[in-house]
């Protein structure tokens, strides 16, 4: 979806036409779900929050400003929603920028870890990444943001983002190769 198409959806939403929201949902619901899942690590919570995301989007459509990049705008809203949810659940444990391995301070969804076949899938490999690395991977591969946009979203230097992404992809490849062997 281009910026112009997104803006026309926003105009429909402001006029209380649900087709605008439906078009955005069709284009981005899966990616938004992935961004949220990367933070909350639970499919159920991610689904609930995705639903909350689109309801929130409906109410704040008039706050979108043309020229700011619609994908980054959506990602910021989704990320903030997920982080607020995490803070409510685990206020003493949350460390967004932690470089520790499989998001050590946030419990993952138990169903994935227990599944034998899950170890061979990318989903299992992604769960091995730190919170910071996983966010970058989901934003880069899912929402298709540029490193510059990701850097602005996370409030980090662009070089750091690019380095973390490379490291995350190398990790994923290594995990997948080891599982294959």
């Amino acid at each position: 979806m281009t910026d112009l198409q997104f803006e026309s959806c926003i105009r429909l939403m402001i006029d209380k036409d649900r087709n605008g929201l439906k078009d955005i949902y069709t284009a981005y619901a899966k990616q938004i779900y992935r961004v949220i899942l990367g933070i909350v690590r639970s499919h159920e919570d991610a689904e609930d929050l995705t639903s909350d995301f689109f309801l929130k989007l409906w109410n704040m459509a008039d706050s979108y400003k043309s020229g700011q990049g619609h994908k980054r705008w959506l990602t910021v809203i989704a990320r903030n929603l997920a982080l607020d949810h995490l803070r409510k659940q685990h206020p003493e444990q949350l460390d967004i920028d932690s470089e520790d391995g499989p998001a050590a301070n946030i419990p993952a969804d138990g169903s994935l870890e227990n599944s034998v076949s899950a170890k061979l899938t990318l989903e299992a490999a992604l769960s091995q990444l730190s919170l910071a690395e996983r966010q970058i991977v989901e934003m880069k591969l899912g929402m298709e943001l540029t490193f510059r946009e990701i850097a602005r979203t996370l409030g980090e230097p662009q070089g750091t983002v690019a380095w973390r992404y490379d490291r995350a992809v190398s990790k994923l490849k290594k995990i997948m190769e080891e599982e294959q062997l």
Partner: protein
Amino acid sequence: MSFDIEKLYKENSEKTGPDMDKLWARIEAGLDEQEKADTKTKPAIAHTRSRGLMRYIAVAACAVIAVTGAFIMLHNKSGKLETEKTNSISSSEAAAKSEAADGAQKSIAIADENEDEQNNDAEKEPMYSEDNTAQIQSIDADKSGVQKAADEVAEVKPEALTQDRSEDATAEVPESDNAGSTGDSKGSSTQDPDERKLMEPEQAQEAVNDMTDRLVNSDEYLDADASRKAELAEEVFKKLYEQGAVISYTIETDPLTIRYTAAGEIEGIVSLV
């Protein structure tokens, strides 16, 4: 064995995503609940608005009464002053006349002086027939002045109320007003270029960086030849110009670059190679 992470990621997304139709049904149910909640609260908002309006009318009425009263008092005072002034002028004229008369007829001094003094005294005191008329005239003048003041206030009143009502409406229903005004501001991409507003320099530079970043990372651009790259770049900078981020730009072919001047007179170059 090498892995295409992007391809694997997309496949994984398809497998692990939720039931999208079910999720949309859930979102629509949430929207329906919100709409019901909005319709329930509307009467309360209308009631508050009318109560606020009555308050404004009461304040305006008090202000009108106070202004009218002050106006009447001022006119009364000035009317009295004028009457006293007129009397003092006529008495001084009479005194001058009597002195001249004294000077001219000194031989009949006592009788004339007495007569003049009597005349002076008589003239100092209000001549009821004349002054009554004068007073009546001044009261009438006051009345007409008050009437004029009241008419002017009456003319002002409906406008003031209309203004206050619109302000009150704005205060009570901010969402619709914001939507209207935001809608207008979002039309920047379709504004007449002659009427466009320039962005702040920082905002403009950010917009230029964002859009050029997106352009050079897009698949279409990466696969394009030089002339197509120039076309794509021109489209981007035309949009930046319409949005007010860029004041001017030039595309050079050898080497393929764009020289631009962003809002705030900041110059830049983008390499298209």
